[in-house]
């Protein structure tokens, strides 16, 4: 008892209190780093080659159709005063464009990432809440109510500026035009289509929009976006969903259709094609550009040489550095204990 008293203040002798916890003490010395670098370098070079080759095999066809140049087929449509203008873009393939082919439209100099633009939407409305049909969110200004003070549905700048050029692709077979069937399903994120965006559960859908007006820029109301497929209307329309997912950068592409059906299941055969464009979307007043892109994809997405090159560069750097280190190591050794 007395002894305990005498050492009452004695600190505990544990590994924790004495800072003696077992620990791994790695050191970045050449002995570890050189082999590490060699392994990482070789692995990266391998990955880089694989990525590069994969990327090289991807075919891309890109055509600008803004119509700035006089000789451009869409030049006549670029004048904002022309309405319902249609132009044709002809191109030919000299070999099979392997399928499935993805068809994108692209916009340049278009700032979907502008903050005020981005917040001008009402996610509650888009999830089908009828309260927000009658009184859209404050954030939708200036597209909250129209001039007659009627609520706009879908409200906000993003919805209002929905891309409205449409495309039809024909293959010229023996001088005759053969329509290439487009698949418009699955171009938007599955979760957007099935969870995040919902139509109000009112049939017909049209009734839910009573007392509201369509966005000022739109030619058709939301419930009539796709006359061919009643399930592809309202807020779950695939084109609408694709547009609503804002692009990160001012030059962007958006998926328009996939070519997966019929004769074109395996891709676009070599031959002449004509793309019929209903030219509606104005971009010239802000120096924008419009383009269409055909591309096939690999597991890693579209044609992207950056990754392969980056892996090759870093991989070779690793190997080079390990060689340099080896030389230094051999020359200077380690200045041991004094």
């Amino acid at each position: 008892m007395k002894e305990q008293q005498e050492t009452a203040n004695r600190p505990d002798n544990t590994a924790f209190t004495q800072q003696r916890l077992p620990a791994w003490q790695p050191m970045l010395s050449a002995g570890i780093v050189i082999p590490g670098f060699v392994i990482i370098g070789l692995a990266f070079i391998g990955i880089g080659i694989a990525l590069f080759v994969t990327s090289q095999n991807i075919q891309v066809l890109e055509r600008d159709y803004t119509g700035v140049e006089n000789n451009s087929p869409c030049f006549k449509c670029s004048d904002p005063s022309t309405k319902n203008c249609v132009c044709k873009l002809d191109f030919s393939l000299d070999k099979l464009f392997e399928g499935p082919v993805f068809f994108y439209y692209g916009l340049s100099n278009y700032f979907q990432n502008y903050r005020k633009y981005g917040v001008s939407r009402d996610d509650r409305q888009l999830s089908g809440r009828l309260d927000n049909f009658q009184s859209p969110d404050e954030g939708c200004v200036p597209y909250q109510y129209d001039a007659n003070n009627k609520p706009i549905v879908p409200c906000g700048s993003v919805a209002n500026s929905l891309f409205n050029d449409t495309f039809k692709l024909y293959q010229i077979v023996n001088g005759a035009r053969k329509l290439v069937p487009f698949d418009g399903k699955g171009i938007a994120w599955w979760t957007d289509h099935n969870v995040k965006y919902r139509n109000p559960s009112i049939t017909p859908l049209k009734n839910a929009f009573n007392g509201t007006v369509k966005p000022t820029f739109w030619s058709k109301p939301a419930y009539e976006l796709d006359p061919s497929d009643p399930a592809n209307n309202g807020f779950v329309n695939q084109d609408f969903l694709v547009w609503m997912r804002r692009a990160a950068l001012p030059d962007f592409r958006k998926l328009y259709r996939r070519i997966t059906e019929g004769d074109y299941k395996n891709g676009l055969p070599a031959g002449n094609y004509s793309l019929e464009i209903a030219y509606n979307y104005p971009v010239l007043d802000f120096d924008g550009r419009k383009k269409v892109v055909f591309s096939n994809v690999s597991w890693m997405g579209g044609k992207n040489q950056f990754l392969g090159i980056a892996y090759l560069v870093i991989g070779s750097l690793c190997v080079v550095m390990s060689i340099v280190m080896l030389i230094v190591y051999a020359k200077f050794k380690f200045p041991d204990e004094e």
Partner: protein
Amino acid sequence: MLRWIRQQLGFDPPHQSETRTVYVANRFPQHGHYVPQRFADNRIISSKYTIWNFVPKNLFEQFRRIANFYFLIIFLVQLMIDTPTSPVTSGLPLFFVITVTAIKQGYEDWLRHKADNEVNGAPVFVVRSGSLVQTRSKNIRVGDIVRVAKDETFPADLVLLSSDRSDGTCHITTTSLDGETNLKTHYSVAETSVCQSVSRLEALHPHPHTQAQPLGPENLLLRGARLKNTKEIFGVAVYTGMESKMALNYKCKSQKRSAVEKSMNTFLIIYLGILLFEAVLSTILKYAWQAEDKWDEPFYNHKTEQERNSSPILKFISDFLAFLVLYNFIIPISLYVTVEMQKFLGSFFIGWDLDLYHEESDQKAQVNTSDLNEELGQVEYVFTDKTGTLTENEMQFRECSINGTKYQEINGKLVPEGLTDDSPDGSTPHLELLFLKAVSLCHTVQISYDQPDCLAGGGDPFSHANGFSTNDMEYYASSPDEKALVEATKRYGSVRASKTMSLYLQDPCKGLRTLVVACRHFSPEEYIDVDRCLNAARTALQQREERLQEAFSYIERDLQLLGATGVEDKLQDKVQETIEALRLAGIKVWVLTGDKHETAVSVSLSCGHFHRTMNILELLQQRSDNECAEQLRRLGLLRTSIEHSFSYETEDHVIQHGLVVDGASLSLALREHEKLFMEVCKNCSAVLCCRMAPLQKAKVVRLLKTSPEKPITLAIGDGANDVSMIQEAHVGIGIMGKEGRQAVRNSDYAIARFKFLAKLLLVHGHFYYIRIATLVQYFFYKNVCFITPQFLYQFFCLFSQQTLYDSVYLTLYNICFTSLPILVYSLFEQLVHPHVLQNKPVLYRDISRNSLLSFRTFLYWTLLGFCHAFVFFFGSYVLMGEDTTLMGNGQMFGNWTFGTLVFTVMVITVTLKLALETHFWTWMNHFVTWGSIAFYFIFSLFYGGIIWPFLHTQDMYFVFVQLLSSGSAWFAIIIIVVTCLFPDVVKKVFYRHLQPTSTQKSQVTGTGGQGGFKEKWTGRICDQIGRGAEMGRNRSPQKALKENF
């Protein structure tokens, strides 16, 4: 009422009056115009807050911190104007920080309240309406008569009215007030020594018309002192509660700030500059861009009417503020919290350290200020007291000289030199008897008996003591020398009472503390005369000190020399090793002592402070300015000439200089020739200041502290006379010694023995410094990484203040995703094994002069942060390229996916960067490092996996899953992380091999052949110390000194 509220809130100090009239037992005069004075009650309040004022006062104090205020402003800006992020993003962390701090401070205050309540609720006995009533301490009012029993502390400042001793005296000890351990005799007021009558007392300011006896300090019993040797006393309370002397002495200890904190604030200001620059640049670019209409308002992005109509200046300001809000995270809010937590938690390791635990006295190291942990790693000058710090402060009588004969103590008997113990030593000659008489009478020693029953009657305690068995006596003396002497004389037999004698200090020799004893015979008439003279001086109301001095010098004339005594103070264990280690660590050790020059030098030599190879410079007994300056110049020249003559020798043979300076010369040197003196001092590796007054110690510390290089100073001492220097130095260390707790209480750290200083500085200080320095640098780095991509993104979104990351990520980055690894690092990191640090003090030089927080290192971390941020952002940007799809199903990513990609890369890189810095991987490091990354992934999956009903937007829904479903994204994450860390690894390897620091060298040896390495080092140190000790023992100090010249 208003005043009461203000007092409660602590705005008004309690009222104070010039003089106070105290009515004993509160019997106020019945007649005349009497205005009762209001006095504070006897509550002691050391707490800062009450329940009512805690919230407002604590908030007020917290927002006085510049960082908190900054975040409050940001928060308010977010509330007021339309900003890119919701107020929650800065409000939540701010709330978190404020709450954590408030809880900590509230807890500390609760402890203070508890302590206060204990003191205020202590039972006391008060005379009320003629009888003794038990009440609580806080109920004592001014004028109450209080009874205090033996060994109790006084509950208020009391004037002693009566004691149970017949002469009305009592003994008290003031250990807890000033650290003096001796018993002091206090006297009761003459009129009241027995009875309690209604009398008027005037304390300190006697009224000219009353005939009251003036009261002096010997009548006053201070609160906090303890009654000894007296059964009970009665006293009247004159100063109570916060007006008592003890409470008035509660000085707010001036806050010491560490060098790290100062650099941290500098860095903060630089970052504030970066923030402002980025915000201004963004605002200007925004307007440059928007000069053209087509950019300003394309058809898809129309403005509202309100936006169009607001004034341009307002728009400009609000844009600037919006950018400020967007980039505000570059100032790391959690830095302060983390630093505080690190310091608080980290300081436990000092108390827990078994190596700092002193078995004999059962004392462990004690941390009073955790704010200064890292300063322990930065010390450049150590100022140490000698007695009690380097030595044990255990006086042992060694020898004495009586009438020219030397006597030594052998087996409890006093034996003349040359004679053996058993040689007959019959009658003691007259002189020797007189000598012993003098020694045993003239002292301040009081005896405390174990049995309280033996206290009957007062009188001379010593003559009484002879009747008891010697073992139950405890001696209390104001000077340890006196105590040792009395204890020694006790062993040689008893002596009888005689007349007044005086005893004073004289020249020493041989490193023993020496007292010369002399006496003077007074005739009875002379004695009466002298006595009156002394009494008059003692009770003088003005110039008491000077008059006493005069009286003493009048008495101490024509003395007859009796002899001299020698008392030895043992050196503490391992003092030499410690001083040697400190010297190797590049720390200059200054010994400051009140001792005479020769004693001081001999102790210095024996404790290894000076050694034989050292060239000793002297600055002693300078009388005038000119002489002093001349001497200083000569010393400077001497030093350089010696160095010059040795400069051709091998490099490792560096001449070390030691300087001896005495108090008088020092004050001369400091007055006029500070620069010259500093010049000499800086080149001396050891400095010894002797004959120092306590205040001079503080002055020397301040001089060094404020010299142009602003070195970090550490003062270590054990006595009340070291307090000023302990408080003055950057780090003050108290030795838990024999001279009370005063030094310990005023210190920042307290240790039981001097030898512990080595581990405290070399190991703990080194660790703390490395930990906190990396913590600070890393915090800035990770916030640069965090915010720069956000800044870069503005170039791609028309400076529209679009955030790159989601608000939740913005908020949680510093709180959750990256906070724990750095906290754990900063608690457990060990760059080198502690044994290596302790055995190789040179490593301490690696971190000297705040090297890890130098501007260069700061620049490296900041640039690294920017580089990494560029790689994150542009890596992701190039990956997106012309916005090709990254998914196998051809679908596209959006802006949030892009931001999340950057964020993911960032969290991983920033965490791994810290992993690269970590040398000591305990299971906790593994857990938090990998756990943080895992937590980020799990959290993101969870956060993105649910539609959150209360959130305004569902931007992040399934974004993270989509990102991870892309093979390219995985490959991109890997390559970007590797790219960021690759140059860092290369740099580290090259530095380690081409320019290794000694720390890095010892890492190899420390982990490689650890055993052998250790032996080698300890072996070498022991060797040196052995030599030093040998020298100290075998040579007389004078000889050693001569050899040095």
